[in-house]
């Protein structure tokens, strides 16, 4: 019977995994090791700035295990959404770590790199041609937003990865990539059912998060057959159960029955989950429905200025009960003080202990006996952001309000300095679908021979 074994070491490259679990995974005879390295979850900063949200040392540690094992077993290693967001800087950052590990470990291999960047010119042209549509409740895309974006990436499907494997790549390093694609590429290339391969990839991409007890830093094993697949945790301390695997299908998705991705929809209406042993779940009936024309998701982020924050506590009950008026007063004074630059900054307050987490949606916005206040200024220049944050902080510290007894100061600062420069601030700018002439149109594959 045709069977393929897939090893998913960890939920995100750099999240780590126990060496023992990885050894267990290798002893199952995997045909491929694949790992997803990215997410938009940590927010727009990482895509916008080109920086990784996982520390370099942690990524290097994981890559050392993965490259060593893949070269020993002579099986392909696929890495998706390099560097967390999958733009060119992220890809290059991850490539350098791979080359460093190869040198240190004396490894040689053929590596494919697949950037996923979309040029501003290309996206603007596609917008004019009507090939771009919003993905969900997203603001309308304009050429101005495209121009302002620092990084634009598209989420590749399996096709560019298969091109890399066909070209003899032993390590495939992909830019922004559909999470399941790094798992599904080899099986689809070998003729396995794409619906099953992609659904298995969906489950494996978060590794042992789909087991009980769940973990984002432990290994998961998939066994793909012709008409079903099986999943199990590599660690004997964890089990794949129908509940844990089915529940994972819900995770971070809008609708668990219909999961859209590059070039089509994974349809789970006919999917069944069955416990085959205490530790192993079998899944069948998942279908991939291709959609024409072929579309992929484009993501972008743009810089909105510089952020400076100040953190303080308040313990005075009179201050806390007058807080709403005080915040309004501080805002008014700050806007007045910088009135000539009113359009160049914004000021925000977060009141922890009252509604810091949920804002207007907080069902119980009564403050406790103390509150934490975060003052945040975002402005076009760092100098202005510092000035606005500093002014708002000192104004709040000495703000007079009716019934005030503690005239020495309203705020308790845990730190000196009290204000922190966060650096450049970004927002997401693009979250759209774009139709392609063919699945590999904007994902060029290049090869290099790594020799040590």
């Amino acid at each position: 019977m045709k069977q393929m074994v897939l090893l998913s070491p960890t939920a995100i490259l750099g999240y780590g995994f126990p060496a023992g679990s990885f050894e267990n995974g290798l002893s199952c005879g995997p045909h491929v090791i694949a790992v997803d390295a990215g997410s938009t979850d940590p927010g727009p900063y990482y895509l916008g700035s080109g920086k990784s949200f996982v520390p370099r040392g942690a990524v290097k540690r994981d890559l050392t295990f993965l490259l060593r094992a893949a070269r020993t077993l002579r099986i392909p290693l696929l890495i998706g959404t390099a560097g967390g967001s999958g733009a060119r800087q992220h890809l290059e950052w991850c490539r350098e770590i791979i080359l460093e590990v190869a040198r240190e470990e004396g490894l040689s291999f053929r590596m494919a790199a697949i950037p996923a960047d979309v040029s501003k010119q290309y996206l603007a042209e596609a917008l004019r041609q009507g090939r771009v549509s919003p993905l969900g409740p997203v603001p309308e895309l304009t050429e101005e937003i495209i121009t302002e974006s620092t990084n634009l990436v598209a989420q590749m499907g399996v096709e560019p990865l298969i091109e890399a494997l066909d070209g003899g790549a032993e390590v495939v390093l992909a830019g922004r990539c559909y999470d399941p694609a790094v798992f599904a590429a080899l099986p689809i290339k070998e003729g396995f059912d794409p619906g099953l391969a992609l659904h298995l990839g969906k489950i494996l991409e978060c590794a042992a998060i789909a087991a009980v007890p769940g973990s984002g830093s432990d290994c998961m094993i998939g066994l793909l057959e012709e008409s079903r697949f099986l999943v199990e945790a590599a660690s004997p301390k964890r089990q794949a159960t129908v509940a844990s695997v089915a529940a994972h299908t819900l995770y971070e998705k809008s609708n668990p029955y219909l999961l859209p991705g590059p070039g089509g929809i994974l349809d789970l209406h006919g999917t069944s989950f069955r416990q085959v042993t205490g530790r192993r779940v079998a899944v069948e009936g998942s279908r991939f429905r291709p959609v024409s024309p072929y579309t992929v998701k484009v993501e972008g982020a743009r810089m909105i200025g510089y952020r400076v924050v100040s953190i303080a506590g308040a313990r005075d009950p009179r201050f806390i009960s007058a807080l709403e008026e005080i915040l309004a007063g501080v805002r008014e004074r700050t806007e007045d003080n910088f009135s000539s630059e009113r359009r160049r900054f914004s000021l925000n307050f977060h009141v922890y202990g009252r509604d810091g987490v949920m804002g207007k949606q907080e069902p119980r916005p009564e403050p406790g006996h103390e509150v934490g206040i975060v003052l945040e200024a975002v402005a076009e220049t760092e100098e202005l952001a510092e000035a606005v944050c500093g002014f708002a902080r000192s104004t709040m510290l000495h703000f007079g309000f009716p019934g005030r007894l503690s005239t020495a100061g309203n705020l308790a600062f845990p730190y000196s300095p009290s204000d922190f420069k966060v650096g450049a601030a970004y927002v997401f700018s693009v979250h759209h679908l774009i139709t392609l002439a063919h699945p590999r149109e904007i994902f060029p594959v290049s090869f290099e021979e790594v020799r040590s």
Partner: protein
Amino acid sequence: MKPLVELAQVIRTKNAGPYELTLDIIFKDRDGYERVKRSNSLNAALIARLYGVPEQDILEVVYFDPACAFKATMKRPLPCGDLGERDIYGAQQHAPLLDLWLPWGDEDEGS
């Protein structure tokens, strides 16, 4: 009436991409799940009310039988990371569900 926290083993929220927030309630057992699903007491109108948003901001509501789960996906109040953001991952927006009671077919009990 039954408190939701007694019926559920998981009550969570999380981003579903930067523009949507998705809410999952996974029930402890199939009986409890089926009873709630039959009554349809978890629905878009209820979620809209709990979160103080118009019902059209609730984009999807689905009962997912394989996981004994209810899922609702709504428009995020702000895109993830925009000015004024309070919860980048959207992982702490579940509190309104923790005080929720659901009809249990025993409403006349004790009367």
